[in-house]
């Protein structure tokens, strides 16, 4: 961690030499901008009241991200976060169960060869579907994250990615990425389902509106500490129709090699979500998810009803009720609420 900290500080110090600067300005939702450097982040306070479990208030997450735009070839970005910081737990005293975990979410540099083609090197969010690349609490519909968007593949890629996105092109946006070995500063094992090595993938995305899109993903990866490898085919889509918005993600993964922990040679999952904007600030939503995990014979299903209130584009309150059936994986039945701010 110390080495990467020095690397980040070094990049920003070196870049400040070539950076035209202006007085710093802060705006909620936009962060603090000074010269070519922007410092922003988000905080997410969550109350979990699972049907079978203890009620808990936690800070999940407190994230800080810093980006710089210096030259076409020097555009560093770093995001670190602290997650799972318990503030209060039923039957305990405040902060007594707090075990915050610092996580390096992203650390990379973007080099633009022209306005269409960019090379990213470092640790980045893996472009499978859409949710994983915009997972910050103030940006997504629900308090709880669909398992479909994280459980079956690596959330992060540590390596290189070539990104092609041309204005008015017939070609879709293309993201081609490769992780030659393991993950840079991985999350603690307690926070991940499994670790991956040797990840290769492509994501194609066709925008169909400002926020609407249709995408497909193809990825191959080896599962660390096993002889298992996996090939994933994914699909994602979002469509806005007036006050309605629909989105879905799905994947099917074929598993090769040996892993005594698995009970089938494939894994698949899908979620569908529909949201309705009652007015500019208040929305209601419903979600259904089905997950056929590689390690359980039973399938996991959950259905969600929720609402969100956004008094400012950067602030959102959410509440939802979840009914879960089948195998218990990452989502439980209960009531969940959150307060999130993009700062």
């Amino acid at each position: 961690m110390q080495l990467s900290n020095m690397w980040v500080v070094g990049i920003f110090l070196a870049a400040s030499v070539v950076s035209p600067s202006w007085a710093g300005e802060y705006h909620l939702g936009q962060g603090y901008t000074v010269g070519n450097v922007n410092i922003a982040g988000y905080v997410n306070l969550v109350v979990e009241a699972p049907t079978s479990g203890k009620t808990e208030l936690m800070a999940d997450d407190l994230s800080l991200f810093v980006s710089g735009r210096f030259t076409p070839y020097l555009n560093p970005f770093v995001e670190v976060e602290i997650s799972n910081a318990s503030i209060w737990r039923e039957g305990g005293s405040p902060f007594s169960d707090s075990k915050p975990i610092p996580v390096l979410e992203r650390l990379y540099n973007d080099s633009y060869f022209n306005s269409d083609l960019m090379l990213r090197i470092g640790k980045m969010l893996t472009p499978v579907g859409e949710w994983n690349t915009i997972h910050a609490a103030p940006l997504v519909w629900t308090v709880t994250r669909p398992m479909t968007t994280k459980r079956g593949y690596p959330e992060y890629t540590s390596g290189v990615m070539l990104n092609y996105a041309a204005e008015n092109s017939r070609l879709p946006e293309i993201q081609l990425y490769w992780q030659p070995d393991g993950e840079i500063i991985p999350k603690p094992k307690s926070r991940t389902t499994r670790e991956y090595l040797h990840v290769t993938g492509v994501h194609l995305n066709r925008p169909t509106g400002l926020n609407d899109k249709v995408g497909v993903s193809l990825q191959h990866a080896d599962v660390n500490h096993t002889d298992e490898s996996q090939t994933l085919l994914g699909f994602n889509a979002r469509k806005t129709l007036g006050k309605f918005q629909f989105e879905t993600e799905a994947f099917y993964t074929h598993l090769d090699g040996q892993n005594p922990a698995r009970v089938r040679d494939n894994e698949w999952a899908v979620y569908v979500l529909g949201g309705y904007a009652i007015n500019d600030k208040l929305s209601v939503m419903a979600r259904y998810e089905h997950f056929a995990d590689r390690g359980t014979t039973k399938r996991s299903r959950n259905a969600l009803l929720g609402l969100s209130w956004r008094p400012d584009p950067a602030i959102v309150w959410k509440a939802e009720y979840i009914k879960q059936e089948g195998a218990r994986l990452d989502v439980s039945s209960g009531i969940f609420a959150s307060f999130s701010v993009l700062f």
Partner: protein
Amino acid sequence: MRVPIYLLLALVAMWGNPARAEELLVIANSGVEVSSLSLEELAAIYLLKVTTWQGGGNIVPVNREASSGARTVFSDAVLRQPPNALNAYWNQMHFKGRVPPLVQESDQAVLAFVQKVPGAIGYVNASHAPQNVKVLARVP
């Protein structure tokens, strides 16, 4: 004195929707090597799809605050998207590492920022001729 009915109707129309009466000038820092921009090119800049000027250098787009009439006019005429959709889009782009257009809360602040910052582009009310900047377009 009798006032013609068409003049009364025109006044009522302007009173009922003052934003439509506002014309904007799109201005850029004097160092920018571009002499004009189409509405499509402007939209690509404010939607962060184009981030560098043709002659080189970063584009630094400036927006007015959300409650501003000028921003409403600009969003309607150039970006052609509802405010909530734009806010969601810019929040997502920010998380992906592209900083949204910076907010300045008056014409004077936009003008001062664009005069001072290389690569900056913004918009101001067309009723006053701005000094020491390039005018790249008129909206609507």
